């Protein structure tokens, strides 16, 4: 890597006052470093560089600001750099404030950084804390998320996965499920948000995480929230059901038109089914799902599904829907003692999934760096 003198010199070029061409080259060099694992690790020990990058995001040159954000995205994709980013360089406050600016053109990049930073629980807690400390709070994030065209220059679709990551924390889940407010209800329509798979996936992830708290299941399934149709609609197809089956369905699923299509992303389909499965944990939940004709929807879904992982999730759900009630003492599936080896298997599966998502984020960051067109859908 760089010698101490070289590093010092480079740092001196990374100021707002430096001549533009020198400044540009210096930032490009740093960006290059962030593209490699060794480069990232090197920068881990050099918080001053990261601080400089943050300062340069206020630079008048758009090209320089872009490079700075790309570098930060790359750094945030590596968990070992989280502490230096958040603590030493303290990038969060400035990121949040720019995020809320409806005219800020780099807001999408900020969202990506925040999503990366909130992926793992430890830094996620930091992100949440700063969100509160800066006086912004979750209500504002949800409000921006639910406002179409909040920012004309940025789509802010990555607020979806950000929220999903934040629901790792009980405080976030509590906020989303607050019965005195209207939060989760405002998120529900986004399970069908056609403009962005990323946002849609984030919302479905949020809902799934919120369904781990089974104390809220009955409320979620009641008219006060009515989560069921929003989970089922993306899974329902144009197939005609009998009049009898139709009448038993939730209103939103009745008489669907011939051109109805299902959710195209298999991961989202899987998450939706997992959420439904979570809702079958309690007896009340199972009864409601059975009564509202979820089975015919999943029956038709099963005929059309090709992805093995999704098929297996579907089969699990159908199994619960058509089985008799379990014996007394086993009614709440979440309170069962799961044998340790099975529990380990679940954790392993989760970890693999997270790794996959992390890889994707890294790939995107790399692509951004190389100025490739990555479809943002």
């Amino acid at each position, binding site marked *: 890597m760089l010698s101490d003198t070289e590093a010092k010199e480079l740092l001196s070029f990374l100021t707002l006052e430096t001549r533009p061409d020198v400044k540009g080259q210096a930032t490009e060099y740093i960006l290059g470093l962030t593209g490699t694992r060794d480069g990232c690790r090197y920068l881990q020990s050099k918080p001053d560089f990261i601080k400089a990058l943050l300062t340069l995001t206020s630079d008048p040159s758009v090209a320089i600001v872009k490079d700075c954000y790309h570098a930060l995205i790359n750094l945030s994709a590596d968990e070992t750099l989280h502490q230096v980013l958040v603590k030493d360089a303290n990038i969060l406050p400035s990121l949040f404030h720019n995020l809320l600016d409806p005219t800020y053109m780099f807001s999408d990049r900020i969202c990506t950084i925040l999503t990366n930073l909130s992926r793992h629980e430890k830094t996620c807690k930091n992100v949440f804390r700063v969100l509160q400390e800066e006086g912004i709070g979750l*209500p504002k994030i949800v*409000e921006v998320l*639910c406002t179409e065209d909040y920012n004309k220059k940025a789509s802010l679709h990555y607020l979806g996965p950000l929220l999903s990551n934040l629901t790792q924390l009980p405080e976030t889940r509590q906020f989303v499920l607050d019965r*005195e*407010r*209207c939060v989760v*209800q*405002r998120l529900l329509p986004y399970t069908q948000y056609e403009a962005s798979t990323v946002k849609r996936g984030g919302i479905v992830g949020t809902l799934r995480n919120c369904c781990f708290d089974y104390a809220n299941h009955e409320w979620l399934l009641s*008219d*006060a929230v009515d989560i069921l*149709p929003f989970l089922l609609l993306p899974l329902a197809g144009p197939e005609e059901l009998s009049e009898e089956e139709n009448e038993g369905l939730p*209103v*939103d699923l*009745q*008489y*669907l*038109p011939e051109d109805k299509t299902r959710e195209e992303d298999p991961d989202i389909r899987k998450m939706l089914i997992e959420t439904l499965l979570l809702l079958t944990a309690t007896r009340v939940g199972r009864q409601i799902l059975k009564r509202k004709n979820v089975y015919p929807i999943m029956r038709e879904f099963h005929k059309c599904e090709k992805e093995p992982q999704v098929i297996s999730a579907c089969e699990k759900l159908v199994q619960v829907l058509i089985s008799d009630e379990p014996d007394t003492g086993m009614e709440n599936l979440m309170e069962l003692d799961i044998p340790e080896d099975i529990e380990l298997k679940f954790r392993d599966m989760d970890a693999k999934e997270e790794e996959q998502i992390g890889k994707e984020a890294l790939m995107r960051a790399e692509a951004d760096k190389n100025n490739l067109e990555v479809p943002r859908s």
Partner: protein
Amino acid sequence: MSQAQDYDSDDGMDGFMDNFTKHKYKGAFNESNWEEEFDKVPMFMKTAPEEIDPKKHPELACLQSIIHDDDRPPEEQAKALKDEGNEYFKEKNYKKAIVSYTEGLKKKCQDSDLHAILFTNRAAAHFHLGNMRSALNDALAAKKLKPDHLKALTRGAQCCIELCNFSEALQWCEEGLKVQPKDQKLQELRAAADKFKRTAERDARKAKVKEKKERVQRDSLLRAIKERGIKLLKPDKPIRHGSDDEDEHESMTKAMAEFELDGLSCQEATGFKVHLDDQGFLHWPVLFLYPEYGQTDFISSFNECDRFVDHLAVMFGEELPPWDVDRKYHPQNLQLYFDDEKGELLQFDPEMSLLKVLKNDRCFVKDGTPSFIVLVKGSAFCKMFLSGKTVHQLK
């Protein structure tokens, strides 16, 4: 008075009293209109007059001007009018309340809060009178002045729901909840609007499905008729046989559609129309005419495969109709004819099926109901009816 004076005044009294009987008391209430007159006295008014004309009601105008003193600053006047409106509102006198609020708004006081409240209150009065549009407009005006006025936002949402404008209602609720996220009323309104909206969407989908089903049924019915080469008669002109020719197909389809649009006028008269059953057979409403006695018989659902004899056996087999005074309308004596209304008749064997007859070139269906003439073989009426007409035989 002392007794002495009493004595004296008695005489004086008489004279005094005399005046009363002789001279009318000026300014007295008239027997016929004393109630009206009473109403004019502010003290005894039961209701305030709609407009107070200072000439007719000087005292009332005076009182009003004390309330509505034009010398006071507009804010005070507006506030007084607001209070007056609120009083009327409490009495459920919404019309008067609206008048007061409107007067208050006219003052154009600088206090936008007060202005917003006047609009909001007037909106409430309109709402209770059922004037949803006016109420909504007022709520909108209030919102413009004070975007975070919760009562205005709530009222706006309510109006939209009443007007079945559910998407708009949801928007009002969103704005309201931004101001006060925990407001119970707004959350209830939001949930209600959402439910109504989704139900309305379902109803629209259901109607579409039904419409499509009906269209498909109609199309297959018309196709079945066309395939059989049965002619449908519009009131103006008959249509030729359907063929593969494009133009003919066009006009046939168009005529079929018009046939539909004509409402199959028989439907109004009899309530029945031709339909296709599950096995693909047509059932027609059929009219039998008995010109000898000016009678008719109506078969509501004559399967095209049925033979005429079978129906005649039922109609005339057991009992003859009362109008058959000569007792001669036995099934074996009956002859069936189709009248082409141009002076030519087509006679056919009752052993034939309805379809066979309808398919014939000379046959057509008028007003959606095939009709046939029934005569008694060899009867005097039959001879007379047939004279001068060309009779063709259907083989």
